[in-house]
């Protein structure tokens, strides 16, 4: 679609400008969000089946004072077998969190296809900063205990 589009046609009014990246970002966000909400809903249905309706009335009350111990991808995946309702929900939340980050990474590739090197550089830089942020968080949380 946007393949082979000449860079530099950024004048206002050009209907085809950034078609490739736009379609990609829009659909990645849409399907990422859709997938995450389906997983979260599945977790809630699972909870309803396992605990019954009272889970929804007392739900946040029961765990109001406790934070979750599902704090890493490994912990969440570990709890998925055999499945726990809470782990299914947390997996959906994880999907939600990684969606925008992966979208930025994919956008860099979309700009490569458009041969828009300035924006390849800009988007790659943003993606790198996001990853650096994750690395700093991991480093400091390990050091901080």
């Amino acid at each position, binding site marked *: 679609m946007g393949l082979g589009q000449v860079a530099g046609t*950024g*004048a*206002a*009014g050009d209907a085809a*400008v*950034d078609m490739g*990246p*736009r*379609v990609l*970002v*829009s*659909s990645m*966000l849409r399907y990422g*969000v859709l997938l*995450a*909400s389906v997983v*979260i*809903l599945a*977790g809630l249905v699972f909870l309803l089946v396992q605990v019954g309706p009272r889970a*929804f*009335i007392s739900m*946040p*009350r*029961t*765990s*109001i*004072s406790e*934070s*979750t*111990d*599902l*704090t890493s991808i490994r912990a969440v995946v570990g709890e998925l077998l055999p499945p726990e*309702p*809470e782990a299914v*929900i*947390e997996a*959906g*939340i994880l999907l*939600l*969190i990684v*969606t*925008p*980050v992966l*979208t*930025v990474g994919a*956008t860099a590739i979309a700009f490569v296809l458009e041969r828009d090197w*300035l*924006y390849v550089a*800009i*988007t790659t*830089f*943003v993606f790198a*900063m*996001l990853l650096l*942020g*994750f690395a*700093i*968080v*991991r480093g400091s*949380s390990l050091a901080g205990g």
Partner: protein
Amino acid sequence: MFFAIFLVSVAAGIGGAILGLGGGIIIVPALTLLLNLPIRFAIGASIVAVIAGSSGAAAAYIRDRMTNLRIGLALETMTTMGALTGALVAGYVSPHWLYLIFGLLLAYSAVALFGRLKLELPGEVPYDRLAERLRFSGDYYDQALGQRVHYSATGVIPGAVMMYLAGIFSGLLGIGSGLFKVMAMDVAMRLPMKVSTSTSNFMVGVTAAASASVYFTRGDIPAPIAAPVALGVLGGAWFGTNLMGHLRNTTIRKLFIPVLIVVAVSMIAKAIRSP
């Protein structure tokens, strides 16, 4: 309780989608003051809300060409750098002064916004070489006006500086800072209000995702709170995006000003009260 959180989140989703804020400003006070949840879970929930609202709304806005992807990504370089700076200097700066500085900055923005209250579209803006070089221009179909709107940005340097400050703020205090992003684009870069809020919408999700790992690792995002928040905000964002296209730019500004004033006043109050 489950349904109360869900309803609050729907409201936050609608407001966030229209104003480009992500909804954290609504979620945190609602969960702590109305529902008595601990502040750390409220902040964890607001991070989830920001990502859900942003991703949900941005998907629609980008499709409708309201979001300017180039402007969003280029300015995101400044906010991510700011966020890292904020995280690095976190131990050395007192939040007291930050609240004061940002409170005053927002108060100034509110005044600047008042002057532009009647302005539907920015019209011709002064030529900016950097905007031309980065191709900060575009067009979208405005449903409220029934016409295609062409626009281009100006004041890229002041806009970028504001974005960097917004990044520092979110890195230090974990706040999405959608307000500052909208202000930078509306007041400094003089983009149409709808372009500013929808582009900010896309940006806050990316920034929030970067800091989400902190809260997730700390266990501040427990499933019983996160599930109704995520689903509620997504529903609200879907509704909000359908609504926003039909609103006038001036209406969105009018909705924006009270939010701005409340946040500015509470920030300045926080600065004065904290020792």
